[in-house]
């Protein structure tokens, strides 16, 4: 465990330098929220106060949380790194090292986004407060649940993106799959909660990754309930477990393939 902690720590330190990148990311994040505030204000103008179970303020908070998770994640960079490792053959150098490649990359990336995550979260809360003027009702316990759910969402998303990156064992460029993944998450859970979709579609959406990496934590933040908590956390744990297994499986198969072909 110590070696992973070390990897984590050293990445955190070197990232202190990337103030610029951080500023750029924050502006981008703000822009998204800005557009959605206007879009949803327009949507609720002259309509009922509650649409599909959400008030305007809840919708804005919803997007603040889902976009927050997505912006902190930095998935494009992670996917690029892994597919590059596979293509350059770096991945085979890692086979002999006394740690697992999956663990290394996972914790390295966590270290990468740790400080960014804290700053973005504060920033997101400030933006939300400025646009809306109040926070959703929460107890200390419920806010802890939300944070846990957000962290689980991150973990799952990192693992899923790693799986996509590892596709590079089989195809030349795994980037298009990353786009596809990002669009599934974006359109089917980040921009709009699943209650907005037709009832038939909702049944399917509950099984998609967007449910656990975007919808779940945001839903808990805007309207907390014990019932939802159980449903979402269970779904997240199952997803985490399966995505980890898949990740290890694809890595092992891929490395074997690499060795047979001589890299």
């Amino acid at each position, binding site marked *: 465990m110590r070696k992973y902690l070390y990897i984590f720590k050293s990445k955190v330190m070197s990232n202190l330098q990337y103030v*610029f*990148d951080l*500023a*750029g990311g924050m*502006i*981008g994040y703000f*822009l*998204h929220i800005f*557009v959605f505030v*206007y*879009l949803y*204000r*327009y*949507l609720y103008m002259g*309509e009922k106060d509650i*649409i599909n179970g959400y008030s305007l303020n809840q919708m804005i908070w919803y997007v603040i949380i889902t976009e927050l998770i997505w912006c902190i994640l930095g998935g494009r960079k992670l996917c690029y790194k892994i597919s590059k490792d596979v293509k350059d053959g770096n991945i085979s150098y890692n086979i002999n090292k006394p740690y697992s490649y999956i663990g290394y990359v996972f914790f390295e990336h966590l270290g990468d986004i740790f400080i960014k995550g804290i700053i973005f979260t504060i920033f997101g809360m400030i933006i939300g407060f400025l646009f809306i003027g109040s926070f959703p009702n929460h107890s200390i316990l419920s806010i802890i649940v939300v944070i846990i759910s957000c962290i689980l969402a991150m973990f799952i998303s990192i693992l899923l993106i790693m799986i996509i990156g590892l596709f590079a064992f089989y*195809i*030349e*460029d795994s*980037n*298009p*799959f990353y*786009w*596809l993944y990002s*669009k*599934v998450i*974006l*359109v*089917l859970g980040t*921009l*709009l909660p699943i209650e*907005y*979709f037709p009832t038939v579609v909702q049944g399917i959406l509950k099984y998609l990754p967007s449910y656990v990496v975007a919808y779940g934590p945001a839903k808990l933040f805007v309207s907390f309930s014990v019932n939802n908590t159980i449903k979402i956390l269970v779904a997240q744990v199952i997803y985490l477990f399966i995505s980890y297994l898949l990740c290890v499986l694809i890595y092992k198969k891929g490395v074997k393939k690499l060795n047979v072909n001589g890299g």
Partner: protein
Amino acid sequence: MLTEVRSQIKVTMLSIKYAIMRELLNKVTFISNIIFMILNNASFLIQWLVLYSIKDNFGGYTFKQVILLWGMAAITYGFSHFFFKNAYHLSDTINTGRLDTFLVQPKSVYLQAITSDVTVSAIGDILYGYIMIFVTGFTIEKFLLFTFFGILGGISLTAFIIILGSLSFWFSRTDIIVDTGESLAVNFATYPDGIFKGIVKWILYIALPVGIVNYIPISIISKFNIKLLLLCSIYCILIVLLSIFIFKKGLKRYSSTNLMNARV
């Protein structure tokens, strides 16, 4: 003068041809990049389908108009990224001293610095734009106007990016400004202007290549207006001239700071 222009065009075309040849080395990647970009853009149809099921008008746009707006944003973006990929890396080109190569050649540094590489997935954006014409009802007139504004907008967007990138002649790290400028333009270009109010709207029409590049063309396609068309053309010419002016100003400074900064 004329022969100079002709030979410049020949060189630019040759660099685009060579860059495409490079991308074609891997045909599977080439095609999958294009197809996935089309799917990528199409995914936003879902968002609008859901929103229009609640309300049938967003900022004065019908569903068809919003889709066409997306198509327009895609084609301008695609055109710009396909032909002028390096405009988006101008900051890097300046900071690493890669302008040297172009400075010893008897051609326009401005053009050489922004061409000579292509983004394959941008072909998907351009195709998506045209698919949206068919989806919203094809007419020859619409097709021609769409193409015209696509090219005009692509050039305007590129000029805007070059202006931001040229700031690297004065300040070393401006890639964030370029990225922000790009995401500003792209974000707003895909949402109807009617949802924005006050100062934001002013910014969209004056400071960013969005209003005149995306919103006005959509209104012209719905209802032809020669005055607005001229306005768009003049805007495009002005912003290109401005970008050339700033680039040339900066190039004189290229000598003084950045080259050393890059090596220190």
